């Protein structure tokens, strides 16, 4: 199914996740290639967030493998922290560090983990802040920012680590409607610049416009996937048809 893109970046093999009685992921095998923008949609409880969070092992799979850049990161002997540095993650609730300024939020990981000098990290942070038009907020605290600004900073914080892939977990779901646009714009910009992205979202407009591939999940499984035009105009799975009829 996945063709025309670069090398395989993430390969998921027969992934299962079980929470007590709930079989949240039920045998998922999938590949994410370099340069792809994969959008994952599905009804709530379909396992799409769990799947995304399994990619960087924030959610530890009950069974199956996640292979990132050729290495099985579900192997206990692997230093997962090293790999997570290359997998940026953006959360629904931003999760900025409230006790640090915007600049400190962005430079913390590059300084402590990549061993960049403070000057170098701050130069890069300022560059990124300029990119998102928030350079004047460098010394503000997260609580002084609007939701949309917070999320753009959260994206910048991940970008400062120069990740190979960015994972977005419903990045606009907690935003006021008028702030959704600015975050989606930034994500579009990233996509245009060739960033590999995996995005869980309910923003169908974004999926239509930006996705190179859309995955539909239900009951912990991938029920269907296709290019956006195909996905919206010619859905095959019954659950997907029903889903689309409700949201479009």
């Amino acid at each position, binding site marked *: 199914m996945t063709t025309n893109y670069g090398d395989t970046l993430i390969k998921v093999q027969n992934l299962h996740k079980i929470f007590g009685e709930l079989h949240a992921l039920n045998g998922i095998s999938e590949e994410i290639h370099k340069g792809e923008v994969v959008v994952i949609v599905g009804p709530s409880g379909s396992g799409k967030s769990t799947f995304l969070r399994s990619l960087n092992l*924030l959610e530890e799979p009950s069974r199956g493998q996640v292979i990132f850049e050729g290495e099985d990161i579900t192997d206990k002997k692997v230093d997962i922290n090293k790999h*997570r540095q290359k997998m*940026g*993650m953006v959360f629904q609730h931003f*999760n900025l560090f409230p006790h640090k300024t915007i600049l400190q939020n962005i430079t*913390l990981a590059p300084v402590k*983990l990549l061993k960049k000098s403070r000057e170098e990290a701050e130069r890069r942070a300022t560059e990124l802040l300029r990119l998102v038009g928030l350079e004047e907020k460098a010394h503000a*605290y997260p609580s002084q920012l609007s939701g949309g600004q917070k999320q753009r900073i959260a994206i910048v914080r991940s970008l400062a680590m120069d990740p190979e892939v960015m994972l977005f977990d419903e990045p606009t779901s907690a935003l006021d409607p008028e702030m959704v646009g600015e975050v989606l714009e930034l994500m579009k910009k990233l996509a245009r610049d060739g960033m590999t992205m995996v995005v869980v979202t309910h923003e169908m407009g974004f999926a239509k416009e930006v996705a190179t591939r859309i995955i539909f999940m239900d009951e912990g499984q991938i029920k269907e996937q296709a290019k956006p035009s195909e996905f919206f105009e010619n859905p095959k799975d019954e659950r997907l048809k029903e889903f689309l009829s409700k949201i479009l």
Partner: protein
Amino acid sequence: MFQEWQDKFVNNFITDDRWKYIADGLVTTLQVTFFAVIIGIVLGFLVAVVRSTYDKTGKLGILNALCKLYLTVIRGTPVVVQLLIIYFVIFGSARDISKVAVAVMAFGFNSGAYVAEIFRSGIMSVDSGQFEAGRSLGFNYVQTMRYIIMPQAFKNVLPALCNEFIVLLKETSVSGYIALQDLTKGGDIIRSRTYDALMPLLAVAVIYLTMVIIFTKLVNILERRLRSSDH
């Protein structure tokens, strides 16, 4: 009337240098409190780290069980009994042990249990998204705790921590049970010499109150500074 008070004052504090009971007692009280606070913070911090690491990751099971035992015993028995046991039982055969050291140990171990639960509640009060954000950037468990969780937890628990130290300062007033001459005991000795209860005990009370007020002020200033990040 004024003459009467003046005579009483002289009799209670000036004659035979009786004020020294109060002054020396105050020094002892401050010594005991200071070192007990340090022991309490270190011990409480370690116990809190063990307990919350166990809660979050399921590791350190044996240590966690030991910590729970410590918390249950210390919080389930009166501090005076703990003080007496440490002095008369644990160091019962070591008659030359310093009473200050015993008091520091007793109050430190006691306070550690309360501080541990304060710290733990602080760690637990930090949103789990903070932990995930740290881990997703590539920080390991210890780094995430150090750079992201602990600074926020500390800020959250500062008022409770301050309260615990005020309690500790006042609790040391039972040191007289092992005949340690702290501030309270000093005032009480004057009372037993002059048969005047009002003045020496009032002086003791005023000194405690002043210390508590000063300490509360200092913590308020610190708190305000820490709060500069949430406008």
